[in-house]
C-alpha cells in the first residue's frame, strides 16, 4: 500500500520540516528515523539491546513504509545479504550490538571496499566474556579501523537526527560507503527522552542507483562484464598497486564525508565554554553525563569547557586541535576499558600529556557525574575536603 508521502531532500527534512515534541526511547527514535528515510529493505537479526529497534522496523515494514524485510540466520548472513541487496541498487538498513557486530564484522569491514551504501545502527553492549547484555561501547574500537563512517549519538534526539542524516551521507557520490550510528544500549535505547520529530508524512527522496561512483550490479548499467569488486588477488595479471590505491580511495571517501557532517550535523564537534582551562571531551551518552558535570561546575562557579564529539570517523583532528589549543587539562569520561576516545585525542593534539585518561566505567556500570566532578576538582587543584563533600 502506498502511503502518499511528501518526498523532500535531507536539508529540508532536518532543518525546515515542522517538528513536534515526543517522549520516546532511543530504539523508537532510530526506528522513527528509518520510517522517514524511504528505506527499501531492512534485514534483522535479534540481539539485546538492538532487538527493539529491528522489531519496530519490522512493524514499520508491515505498515508499508519499507518495501522488504526479513529476519536473517545470523549477523554474518545479515551483513552479507545487505551487501548483496545494496549492489542491486536499493536503500538498506540494519542494526546490531556487541557480539553481533563482531560476528558480522567480516562482512562489515568488506563493505567500504565494495562501496556498499547502507546505514548500520550500532546499539552498543558488552562484548563477552563474561556474558552481559549491559551497555559498554568497546565494540566501536573494532569498527574504527573498518573505513565505515561513524557517528556517535548522545541521546534519543541525536539518535533520530543522526540516523536520518546517515541515509543522506552514505549515498553521496564522493562518499558512498556505509555510515554507522552508534549509541549506548539501555542508557539511550531503553530510556525515554524528548525527541522533536517531523510528521511521518515527510520522507527522504528515494534512492537513485545510478547516481553512484560504481555501477549497480543489475544488468542495466554498463559495463556488462562488470566487476565491482575485482578479486584483485595474487594472480600474475594484477599489480598490487591497484589494491593499495583502492584502499586509499576508501579512506578518502571517509574523509570526504566530513563536509556532509558539517552540512547535516552542524559539524563533527560541539564546544561549550571554549575559553576554559579544563575541558571535558566525550561522545555518546558519556557526553550527556559530561553536560551535566558542566552544569554542576557552572553552579559552583568553576570554568569548565565541554567538547562533544559527534563524529568518530572521519576523526575531526583539526577541530579537536582548535578546541583544545589552550587547554591545561582534558578529562575524557568513557564507557569502555581501553579508552579509545582518549587515545584518539592524545594522538591528535601535540601536548597529549594533558589528557586525563578517564574516568572510565564499563561492563554496564553507570557513569555518575560525581566521578567527573572529582577529576575537575583535581584538575583545578582544589583541596581534598571538597572531594569528600
Amino acid at each position, binding site marked *: 500500500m502506498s502511503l502518499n508521502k511528501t518526498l523532500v531532500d535531507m536539508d529540508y527534512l532536518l532543518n525546515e520540516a515542522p517538528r513536534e515534541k515526543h517522549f520516546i526511547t532511543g530504539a523508537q527514535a532510530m526506528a522513527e528515523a528509518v520510517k522517514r528515510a524511504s528505506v527499501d529493505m531492512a534485514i534483522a537479526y535479534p540481539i539485546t539491546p538492538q532487538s527493539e529497534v529491528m522489531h519496530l522496523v519490522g512493524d514499520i515494514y508491515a505498515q508499508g513504509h519499507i518495501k522488504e524485510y526479513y529476519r536473517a540466520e545470523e549477523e554474518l548472513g545479515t551483513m552479507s545479504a545487505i551487501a548483496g541487496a545494496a549492489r542491486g541498487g536499493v536503500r538498506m538498513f540494519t542494526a546490531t550490538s556487541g557480539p553481533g557486530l563482531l560476528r558480522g564484522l567480516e562482512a562489515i569491514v568488506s563493505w567500504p571496499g565494495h562501496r556498499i551504501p547502507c546505514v548500520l545502527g550500532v546499539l552498543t553492549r558488552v562484548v563477552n566474556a563474561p556474558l552481559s547484555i549491559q551497555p559498554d561501547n568497546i565494540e566501536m574500537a573494532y569498527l574504527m579501523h573498518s573505513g565505515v563512517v561513524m557517528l556517535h549519538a548522545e541521546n534519543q534526539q541525536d539518535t533520530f537526527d543522526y540516523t536520518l542524516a546517515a541515509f543522506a551521507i552514505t549515498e553521496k557520490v564522493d562518499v558512498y560507503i556505509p555510515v554507522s550510528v552508534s549509541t549506548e544500549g539501555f542508557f539511550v535505547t531503553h530510556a525515554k527522552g524528548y525527541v522533536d520529530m517531523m510528521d511521518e508524512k515527510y520522507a527522504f527522496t528515494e534512492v537513485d542507483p545510478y547516481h553512484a*561512483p560504481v*555501477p549497480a550490479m543489475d544488468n542495466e548499467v554498463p559495463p556488462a562484464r562488470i566487476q565491482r569488486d*575485482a578479486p584483485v588477488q595474487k594472480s600474475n*595479471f594484477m599489480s598490487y598497486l591497484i589494491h593499495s590505491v583502492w584502499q586509499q580511495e576508501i*579512506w*578518502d571517501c571517509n574523509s570526504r564525508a566530513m563536509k556532509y557532517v558539517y552540512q547535516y550535523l552542524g559539524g563533527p564537534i560541539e564546544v561549550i565554554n571554549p575559553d576554559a582551562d579544563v575541558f571535558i571531551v566525550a561522545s555518546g551518552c558519556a557526553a550527556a553525563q559530561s553536560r551535566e558535570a558542566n552544569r554542576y561546575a557552572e553552579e559552583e562557579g568553576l570554568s569548565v569547557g565541554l567538547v562533544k564529539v559527534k563524529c568518530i570517523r572521519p576523526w575531526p583532528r583539526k577541530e579537536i586541535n582548535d578546541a583544545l589549543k589552550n587547554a591545561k587539562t582534558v578529562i575524557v569520561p568513557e564507557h569502555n576499558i581501553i579508552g579509545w576516545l582518549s587515545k584518539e585525542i592524545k594522538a591528535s593534539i601535540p601536548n597529549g600529556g594533558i589528557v586525563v585518561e578517564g574516568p572510565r566505567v564499563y561492563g554496564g556500570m553507570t557513569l555518575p557525574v560525581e566521578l567527573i566532578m572529582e577529576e575537575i576538582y583535581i584538575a583545578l587543584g582544589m583541596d581534598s575536603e571538597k572531594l569528600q563533600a
Partner: protein
Amino acid sequence: MSKKITVGPVGYMPQSAPSMGVELSPEGKALLYGNIVEEEEAMRDAAKALLTMNNPTIFPGPQVLWDWREDVADKSAAILDLASEIPNCKIIPMPDYRPKYPKIDVKAEINPNHPNLTILDNKIKACVFIGVHCHYANLTLRMIRAGTSCYTVAMCAMMGHEEAMASIRDVHADSIVKFKDIVIQVRNELGIEHTTTMPPENPSLPKEDWGSLTPADYGEYRALIMSKKGEHVTAVE
C-alpha cells in the same frame, strides 16, 4: 598558485590527493593542479597540454561507450568531434572494469586495474578520461600519477576527481562542445594548423576485408564447415 597535484611519476607509493588536502571543486568551478579555478582556465590549460604533448589520447569509459541512456548518443558524438580537433589524437576505450586474463591488449584498450600499461606502452603524455565511474576513475588517475609522466584531464558527469591535473565536473554534451571550442581557440593561438580528422579506429579490429570469415558468417550453411560426429579433423587453422 602552487601546484599541489602535478604530472607524475610521483613515486612508488603515492599519497592520495584528498589526503594531501585537495578538495573537490564546488559546482560551476573546476580543479587545476589541485586548486579550485574557473572552468575556462582549467579547460585552457588542459587544451594546451593536449595540443603540445605527445600522443594525446581520449579514454571513453563504459558510460559513453555503451548505448544505455539517451544522452550517450550526443555525448559520444561530441567526444569524437573533440578528438578530431586535436592533432594526431587517438581514442583508446575503457569498455570494462574487470581484470582480464591474461593481460589486456594495450594498443586496443585501457583497464583501471593496470592503466599504466597502456599509458607507458603508447607513450601517452596527455589524456582525457570521460564516462568512467568515479571510483574507477580515481584508481586509474592515481596509478597514472604514481607511475607515468602523463597529464590527465578528468571530465566527470558528477563531482570531478582530485587526482587529475585538470578536473571538470557536471560534464554533459554541452561542456564537451565548450571544451572543443576552447581547444580550437588555443590551437589557433598557438598557430598549429590542423584539418579536422577522425581518430584512427581500434587497432585490434580486423580490417574490413571479407577474406577472413568466422563460422557465424556462414549462416545456415554453418553445418558444412562443422565436423560431423565421428569425423576426425586433424589440423584446424
